[in-house]
């Protein structure tokens, strides 16, 4: 997979505090989650990439451009959605996005048209002439997203894009991110603490801690347990759950837990075993209403890796 960002040994100090300690990673095309505890260096990295803060040593390569010498070209190709709410007094959403479009290099007419387009795309068509200072969190996030999109950059950096949103806005923004990533070829880097958002939209992740990369790679491979044995959870209709648990045990299944669901172990590729479970149910007048593997969530992996990383240091 091609990489749009290649970072090598990035070092950044704030006085005596080492924010980036030889940070090295590859960001591939598509949607990538940038994760890490507070203070891990995510914001510092983003600011170095945008040229807002200089870095001491290391290299950043973006679409063939090298920082810091090509910073002007790089800025024009990145759209940034900051975590904080951006407010300008007495300015409507439309004016704000238009103005920021001109700051990114569009002519005034092009800026107006693009602002109109992107505000519609994010779903703010009615509110776009209202004063931004009255907006709800969901609307604010959409304005910020529109601002990041308005100059059609190759890379979008979204910092907590759904923070503070009510469920509807949250859903809409995630859909927009998925749409931009899958259907419009945008590369997106999402920095967030809401890991299910990343599970839903991203294809790769980078986990950072204390200025270094802890683990990076395709989401699929990071989440998949490599073990041969997986843990299934099951619920049945038409009979008592404890009875079914006993039946499973009698058939040599390793039952690990029984509460409202039964947990038991099974070999991954053993189709016959899967089928036999259904047969056991049917033979006893029951049917299966749920059977699913316990999925390791991104949060579990994240906490594991961070804990491991803390112990190593």
């Amino acid at each position, binding site marked *: 997979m091609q990489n749009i960002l290649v970072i090598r040994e990035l070092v950044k100090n*704030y006085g005596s505090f080492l924010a980036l300690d030889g940070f090295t990673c590859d960001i591939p095309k598509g949607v990538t989650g940038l994760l890490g505890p507070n203070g891990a260096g995510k*914001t*510092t990295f983003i*600011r170095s990439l*945008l*040229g*807002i*803060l200089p870095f001491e040593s290391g290299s950043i390569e973006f679409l063939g451009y090298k920082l810091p010498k090509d*910073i*002007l070209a790089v*800025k*024009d190709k*990145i759209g*940034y959605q*900051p975590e*904080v*709410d*951006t*407010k*300008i*007094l*007495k*300015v409507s959403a439309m004016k704000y996005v238009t*103005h*920021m479009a*001109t*700051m*990114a*290099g*569009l*002519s*005034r007419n*092009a800026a107006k048209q*693009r602002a109109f*387009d*992107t505000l519609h*795309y994010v779903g703010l068509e009615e509110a776009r002439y209202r004063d931004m200072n009255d907006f709800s969190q969901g609307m604010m996030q959409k304005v910020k997203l529109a*601002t990041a*999109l308005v*100059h*059609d950059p190759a890379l979008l950096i979204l910092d907590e894009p759904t923070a503070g949103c009510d469920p509807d806005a949250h859903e809409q923004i995630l859909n927009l991110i998925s*749409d*931009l990533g899958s*259907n*419009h070829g945008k590369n997106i880097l999402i920095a967030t603490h809401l890991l299910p958002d990343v599970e839903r939209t991203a294809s790769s992740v980078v986990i950072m801690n204390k200025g270094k990369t802890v683990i990076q790679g395709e989401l699929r491979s990071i989440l998949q347990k490599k073990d041969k044995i997986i843990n299934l959870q099951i619920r049945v209709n038409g009979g008592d759950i404890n009875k079914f648990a006993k039946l499973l045990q009698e058939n040599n299944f390793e039952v690990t837990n029984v509460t409202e669901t039964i947990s038991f172990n099974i070999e991954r590729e053993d189709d016959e075993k899967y089928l036999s479970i259904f047969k056991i149910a049917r033979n006893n007048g029951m049917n299966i209403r749920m059977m699913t593997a316990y999925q390791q969530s991104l949060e579990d992996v994240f906490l594991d890796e961070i804990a491991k990383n803390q112990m190593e240091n």
Partner: protein
Amino acid sequence: MTEDQKNSSSTDYLQKFTYRSYDGELQPRWKRVLYLIRFELISTWRKSKFAKVLIIIVLMFSFFSILFAAMLPLLGDVVIRDVLNESIANYLALPLTNSIFSNSNGISYSLGLGLGILLIMVIGLAGSGFFADDKRGKVIEIYLSRLVKREYVTGKVGAIVIYINILVLLPLIITGMLFVQSLGEDHADYLDFYFGIIAYSLLISIILGLFILVLSILVEKRAYASLIFFLFFFFGTIIGAMIYEGDPNNELLLLISPSNFLLLLAYVCLGDYDLGVRNNEEYIMVELNLDNGVGLEYWHVFLVTIIYILILSLILAYKIWKTTTEEL
């Protein structure tokens, strides 16, 4: 398909309503700075109702200069240039003690009302938010994700300099031309007069502009910046007057009062080195010559101007280049 159908199908299309990409050209970078200047000028006009009121008052009073212009030919035996110079110089001055006059005859030739205090307030109110509002609204980061620091600063400085020039240069040039016109003189003879006005206005806009911008970037709220700006001018003038009165023989002390400094700068730009200062103890006008090799000289004024500009620029540059993560 018929011939008609084939032709029409070549222009037909179906495009879903979704995100569109942008293939247009990007503007040269200096144009972005211009857009920023434009935006700042428009929003600063919008932001303060009080400033709008003050500007209207200033404009109203400026019309009185038309009256004064008509009065000029009636003044009789006076040095015309002195009258003109003093009127121009007093535009931004505080009508307080130790004002500096264009000659030492003991008569004040200033035509026009002392609007200085109002305009200082307007400038303070207008410029105080340039950085303070951006810091509060947390938009500096977004700006810097698209512009480099020097472009961002240039935009702000450009905007305030243009703003102040509009408030200073326009009225002064118009007033100056009205005066010359009503005197029946030839404008060509007064080109150095006009040039002096332009130079004064530019230097004023840079000094006052940089000062309010430095205040704007140092404080948290725009109200603090405009307040400090105004108080500095007001109390600085009073204290400066008191210090000078303590030792009237030391002409250099005149530079301390901001109002007097602006007056001196005006006279120097207009080329009038033959001035007078009121000595309050003895109630007489004392001669103040800026070109007699003694005491305050004209080049002192320029030197101090340059030093002010350098110091303010350095402070501004330092604050911008060293913005901490919090401030962003």
